[in-house]
C-alpha cells in the first residue's frame, strides 16, 4: 500500500495555455527508487508535486484523473495529510528549512503529527545518524552551508520514516562530492527502510546507477518507463540529450549502454576495450596522452593559447580574503587570465569560488594582495532573477546585448522577465552584465550558471560563451559543462588553488572532479567527453590491430 499510482492524470496550472502533465498513468511499487528524467519544462516537478499533493491543493489549476499515494487519494487528502506518508525535498534548501536549529527542523514534521516527545526524540536521532548530521543537531540553521542545509532538509523529510519520498533536483546546489554522498544516502535509506523514492534530476550520471527504474517525460507526457538499461537504450534512439556521458561512450563503440561507472567499465573490459586494473595495457592508453596528446585534447590546448603574449585580462596578485574574527576565505591566490581564455573554477562548497569571483568584479576588497584587470569585469551571480528588475525584457538590457545572447526575437522584447524560462532568464541576466557594445567587458565571471539546467541549455550556454571575445571564468560544480566549455580548470580547496592546468590534465586526473568518461577510462589519454573516449579507444584498437 505504500506505492504511488497515477491514473489518467492531466493537470494544467492556473492561467497556463497547455497542460503540464498529460494523461499520466503510472504505478510505482513500494520500495522502488525511481529517477525522473526530462528537459526543463517537461513536467518532472509537476509530477512530484502531484505525488506530494501540492498539485492541485496548493497550486490550484485544473486536475483530472487520480493519484493514490500510500493508499490515500490526493483529491481527498491534502499535502498536510499526505505528509504522514510522504517526505518532500525541494531544490532550494534555504526555503524549506523553517526552524532555527537542525534538531528542531528534524523534529518539526514529527511534532506536527502529534507524536509523543520520546518518539520525536528517537526519530530525530535516527534521521541524524542516518545522514551523519548528528554533529549539526544543535547548530543554527542560519549558519549551515548549502550542502549541510540540503542534508538537513533530507533529514527532516526522512525523520519518521515516510513510506514515500519525493525529491526535486536535490543535488543541483551541491558539489560533486556532496551530490554523490546524497545519492548514496538515499540509496541506503531506500534499502534500510524500504521507502519508495522518486527523484527528479538533470545530472542522470549521478543517480542512474542507484536507480531501479527511470521515467522520462517530454511535454508533460511519460515517454519512457523502464529499467535504467532500457531507458538508456531508449534515450540512445529517441532522446540523445538524456543519455549519460558513459552511455554515449558505450553507444559510440557499438556497446549496449549501461548505467554507472563501474558497469560501463566492466562492459568495456568484457570486450577487451579497457585493460584490467593494474595490467600493462593501462600505461599504453595513458601513454598516448602523455606522449602525443589525443586529438580532442590537442585541440583544447591550442585554443587555450589564444591571447598569449598580450596583457592579461585579469590578474590576481597574492590575494587574501580574511574575515574579521574568522577564517581566511582566500589564501594567497595568484593567477591570471588571458584575453579570450575560458576558465572553469571548481571545488567543494565553501572552497572560496564565489568569493574569488566577487573579488574579480570588485564587490570585495582583498585584505592583502590586489586584483588588476584591463577593463570592466562583468559578474553574473548565482541567481539571475536578482538582475531582473524591470517590467520588460527590452528595458533590462541594450538591444546589442540582447542580440548577443539570442533574446532579440520579436516575442521577447515586451515580455516580463519573470515570465521567462530558467535558461532564458540566465541569458537575459548575462545580457544585463554584458551591457552596451561600446563598452564590452574584458572579463566575464559566472557563478554556477548551470544550476538546475538541462543538457540542452548547458550546451547552448557553452556555445554562447565560446562566441564571446572576453576572458570568461565560470565557477561550476559540473565537470561535464567544464569539459565542454573550458580551456583551463582551476581547482580550489580551502581558499587556495590546488590544481591549475589544461582541462584534460585536471578533470581526467581525479575522481570526484572528473567527467564520467574520465572516470570510466581512469583518466586515460586525458579523454573527457564520450567522443574523446571513443576516439582514444578506437585509436588504441587500431594500434593493436583489433577490430570491434
Amino acid at each position, binding site marked *: 500500500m505504500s506505492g504511488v499510482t497515477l491514473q489518467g492524470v492531466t493537470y494544467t496550472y492556473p492561467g497556463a495555455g497547455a497542460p503540464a502533465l498529460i494523461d499520466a498513468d503510472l504505478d510505482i511499487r513500494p520500495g522502488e527508487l525511481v529517477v525522473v528524467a526530462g528537459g526543463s519544462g517537461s513536467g518532472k516537478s509537476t509530477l512530484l508535486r502531484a505525488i506530494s499533493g501540492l498539485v492541485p491543493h496548493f497550486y490550484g489549476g485544473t486536475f483530472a484523473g487520480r493519484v493514490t499515494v500510500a493508499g490515500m487519494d490526493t483529491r481527498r487528502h491534502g499535502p498536510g495529510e499526505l505528509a504522514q506518508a510522504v517526505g518532500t525535498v525541494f531544490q532550494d534548501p534555504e*526555503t524549506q528549512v523553517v526552524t532555527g536549529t537542525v534538531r528542531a527542523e528534524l523534529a518539526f514534521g514529527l511534532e506536527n*503529527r502529534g507524536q509523543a516527545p520520546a518518539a520525536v526524540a528517537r526519530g530525530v536521532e535516527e534521521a541524524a545518524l542516518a545522514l551523519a548530521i548528528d554533529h549539526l543537531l544543535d547548530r543554527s540553521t542560519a549558519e549551515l552551508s548549502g550542502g549541510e542545509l540540503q542534508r538537513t532538509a533530507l533529514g527532516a523529510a526522512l525523520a519518521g520514516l515516510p513510506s514515500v519520498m519525493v525529491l526535486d533536483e536535490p543535488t543541483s546546489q551541491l558539489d560533486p562530492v556532496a551530490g554523490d554522498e546524497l545519492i548514496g544516502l538515499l540509496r541506503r535509506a531506500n534499502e534500510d527502510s524500504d521507502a519508495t523514492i522518486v527523484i527528479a534530476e538533470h545530472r542522470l550520471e549521478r543517480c542512474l546507477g542507484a536507480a531501479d527504474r527511470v521515467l522520462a517525460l517530454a511535454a508533460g507526457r511519460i515517454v519512457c518507463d523502464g529499467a535504467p538499461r532500457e531507458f538508456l537504450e531508449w534515450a540512445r534512439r529517441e532522446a540523445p540529450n538524456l543519455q549519460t556521458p558513459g552511455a554515449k561512450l558505450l553507444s559510440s563503440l557499438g556497446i549496449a549502454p549501461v548505467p554507472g561507472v563501474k558497469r560501463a567499465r566492466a562492459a568495456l573490459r568484457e570486450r577487451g576495450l579497457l585493460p584490467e586494473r593494474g595490467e600493462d595495457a593501462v600505461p599504453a592508453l595513458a601513454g598516448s596522452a602523455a606522449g602525443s596528446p589525443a586529438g580532442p585534447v590537442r585541440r583544447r590546448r591550442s585554443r587555450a593559447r589564444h591571447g598569449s603574449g598580450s596583457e592579461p585580462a585579469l590578474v590576481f596578485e597574492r590575494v587574501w580574503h580574511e574575515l574579521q574574527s574568522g577564517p581566511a576565505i582566500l589564501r594567497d591566490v595568484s593567477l591570471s587570465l588571458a584575453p579570450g581564455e575560458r576558465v572553469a573554477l571548481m571545488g567543494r562548497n565553501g572552497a572560496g569560488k564565489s568569493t574569488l569571483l566577487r573579488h574579480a568584479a570588485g564587490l570585495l576588497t582583498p585584505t592583502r594582495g590586489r586584483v588588476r584587470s584591463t577593463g570592466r569585469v562583468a559578474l553574473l551571480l548565482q541567481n539571475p532573477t536578482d538582475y531582473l528588475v524591470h517590467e520588460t525584457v527590452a528595458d533590462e538590457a541594450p538591444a546589442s546585448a540582447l542580440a548577443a545572447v539570442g533574446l532579440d526575437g520579436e516575442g521577447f522584447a515586451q515580455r516580463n522577465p519573470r515570465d521567462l524560462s530558467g535558461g532564458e532568464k540566465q541569458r537575459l541576466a548575462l545580457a544585463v552584465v554584458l551591457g552596451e557594445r561600446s563598452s564590452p567587458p574584458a572579463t566575464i565571471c559566472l557563478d554556477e550558471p548551470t544550476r538546475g539546467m538541462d543538457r540542452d541549455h548547458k550546451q547552448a550556454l557553452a556555445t554562447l560563451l565560446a562566441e564571446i571575445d572576453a576572458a570568461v571564468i565560470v565557477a561550476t560544480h559540473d565537470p561535464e559543462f567544464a569539459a565542454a566549455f573550458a580551456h583551463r580548470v582551476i581547482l580550489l580547496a580551502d581558499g587556495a588553488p590546488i590544481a591549475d592546468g589544461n582541462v584534460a590534465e585536471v578533470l581526467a586526473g581525479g575522481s570526484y572532479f572528473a567527467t564520467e568518461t574520465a572516470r570510466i577510462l581512469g583518466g586515460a589519454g586525458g579523454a573527457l567527453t564520450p567522443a574523446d573516449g571513443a576516439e582514444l579507444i578506437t585509436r588504441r584498437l587500431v594500434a593493436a590491430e583489433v577490430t570491434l
Partner: protein
Amino acid sequence: MIYRRRSSPLHSARAGAGCAYCVALAIASLTMSNPIALLGLILSVLGAGLAAGVGRQLGRAALLGVPVVAAIVLINVLVSRNGLTVIVRLGDLPILGHTDITLEAAVYGAILGLRAVALILCGILYTLAVDPDEVLRLFRRVSFRSALSATLATRMVPILIRDGRRLAEAQRCRPGPPPSRLTLMRAACSGVLDRALDVAAALEVRGYGVARRPPAYRAPYSRHDLEFMSSTVAIVAVAIIARTSGLAAFTAYPSLHAAGWSAAAVAAALLAAAWLPFADRRGLRP
C-alpha cells in the same frame, strides 16, 4: 543577530526559564526610575550577556543605544514645560512656542532613554540566549500557529537580509546607471513574495496545515532551570520592594530628588540576583 547555542548557564536553562529571566529584567526596568538603580539594571543585563557569551553583541547594541538616549533627551527637553532649574533659555521657537530647557527635563529624558536602552538590551539578550524553537514548543500548546508565525518571522529575517544583499550586489554588477529606487523596491517585493510562496509550500508538505496539538512535554528540571527561575523571582521581588518601599525613589519634577544609598543597595541586589545563576557552571549543555 540570531540565537546560537553556546555553552553557558543561560543557554543551558530551559526556554521557559530563560524567557522568564529576560521578562523579569524588562519588568524591573519598567518599574524603576532611579538612575542608580537603572544603571545597576543595565549593568546586570550586560554582565548576564557577557557571562552567556553574547557580551560583544550586547555591547554593540548598548553603543547603538547612545543615539536613542540622546534623541529622547532632546525631545524631552524641547517638549517638557516642567522643572525649576532653567539651564538654557531658547525664547520663542516656531511650533514649540516659548522654550526653556530645564535640568529636570534633561535628567528625566536621560532616565527615559536609559530605560529604553535597558528594554532593548533585555530583548537582545532574549534573542541571543533563548532558543526560539523551544519557545515555539512552549507556546504551541496554547496557540501553535501564532507561535510558528512568530518563529518563522524570526527565521525569515536573516534570509530576507541575505536576499537584499544579493539584490544589492547584483545591481552593483549592472553597467550604466542604476535602476530607480521604485524599480528596485518592486523587484524586492516580488522576491519576498516568491520566498513566501516557497516557504508556504514547504510548510504544507511538512504537515503544518493539519498540525495537531502536541502532547505535553515534561523534562526534568536542571540545576540551571531552577537557578534562573529563582533569579527571576528574586529580580521581580527586588523590583516590587524597591517600588513599593521607596528604596529606589526618584522624582524629576518640579525639582530632582533621588534616593542615594538605598538605590545603590537595590542596584547591588539586582546585580547579585541577575549574576548569581552564572556562577554555577556545572552540567552545561554543550
